[in-house]
């Protein structure tokens, strides 16, 4: 069962990408992107997890207690913020596209092509 977290991470990445490709609405597409990105959180935390390890906070546990890997948590924190900001920029672009060109369907984009 110890591969389950990894499998969930792979699943979220793939289902997110499938969602993006089949999306018919830009807001839906943006949320699918965030699903795909959340796969990396699960992957990182699964890699850092140690059975029996506690959270790496020594406020109420003695020094030397086995803890889970704190480095991946710091990485995941950064990743969470990045996701929120990319979402913000994409939504702003979506709002502008919808306002100016009256479409939220990604398949109607492509004024310049070929």
């Amino acid at each position: 069962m110890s591969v389950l977290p990894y499998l969930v991470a792979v699943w979220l990445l793939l289902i997110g990408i499938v969602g993006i490709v089949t999306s018919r609405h830009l807001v839906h597409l943006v949320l699918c992107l965030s699903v795909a990105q959340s796969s990396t959180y699960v992957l990182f935390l699964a890699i850092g997890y140690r059975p029996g390890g506690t959270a790496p906070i020594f406020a109420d546990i003695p020094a030397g207690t086995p803890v889970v890997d704190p480095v991946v948590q710091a990485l995941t924190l950064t990743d969470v913020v990045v996701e929120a900001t990319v979402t913000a920029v994409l939504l702003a672009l979506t709002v502008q596209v919808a306002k100016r060109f009256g479409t939220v369907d990604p398949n109607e984009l492509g004024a310049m092509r070929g």
Partner: protein
Amino acid sequence: MSGRARLAMVALAGVALAVVLVVAVIDLPRPDAPPPRSAKLSTSVALHERHVTNIVAGITFDLRGLDTLGEELILFAAAVGVSVLLRAQREDSTMQDAADAAEQRRAQVPASARALGAALAGPIIVFGAYIVAHGQLTPGGGFQGGVILAAALLLVYVAGQVLALPTDSPVDLVEVTEALAAAAYGLVAVGGLIFASAAMTNFVALGVTGHLLSGGTILILEVAVGIEVASALTLILAELLDQALLRST
């Protein structure tokens, strides 16, 4: 590409990727493997040499402080970017329309709701500030507290307390605050270069592990990040909100 062709392609690619990725993750070390040496070192350095009890905060704001600087700048760039992307449009429609709509909206919000918003905002701000300031000790910190602060500010905004002011000045104020908070992080990094040996090195007394004023520059950075996150998110939400208000005219 037609929808069906695209679906077929992504299905094929997905199956292939799934196989490869599953084989790859099965190869990864199992959780009973000993933790990496760098991780163990980071834990003991953060606890004993940086005097923080929340190891993640120690790593985020010191050992890997450069990542966090980058992260703050991503937030900063996104906030500036969102206002660049949305403002051009706001200038198209007259500001007066927006102000009128806001005024109208304010009138629609029942007085009791406004009072509730104002009453709730205070405690939420205190709570957010608490989370920001204790990041080096317990879970939480600048980012989490900053989002809570932004929510409180938005509550004030929606409750109609701020809309009585001229429309652009609060947004300008938030913009300036946001930029200065981002600058503060950079200045702390430069401070390390001036007052200590290397960029980002702590140059403030470390304090006693477990006390509120411990961790040296980490507390300063937590506060800078808290302000940065709160103002950046407020800015983003305010720009989107203005857009939403414009529609109702």
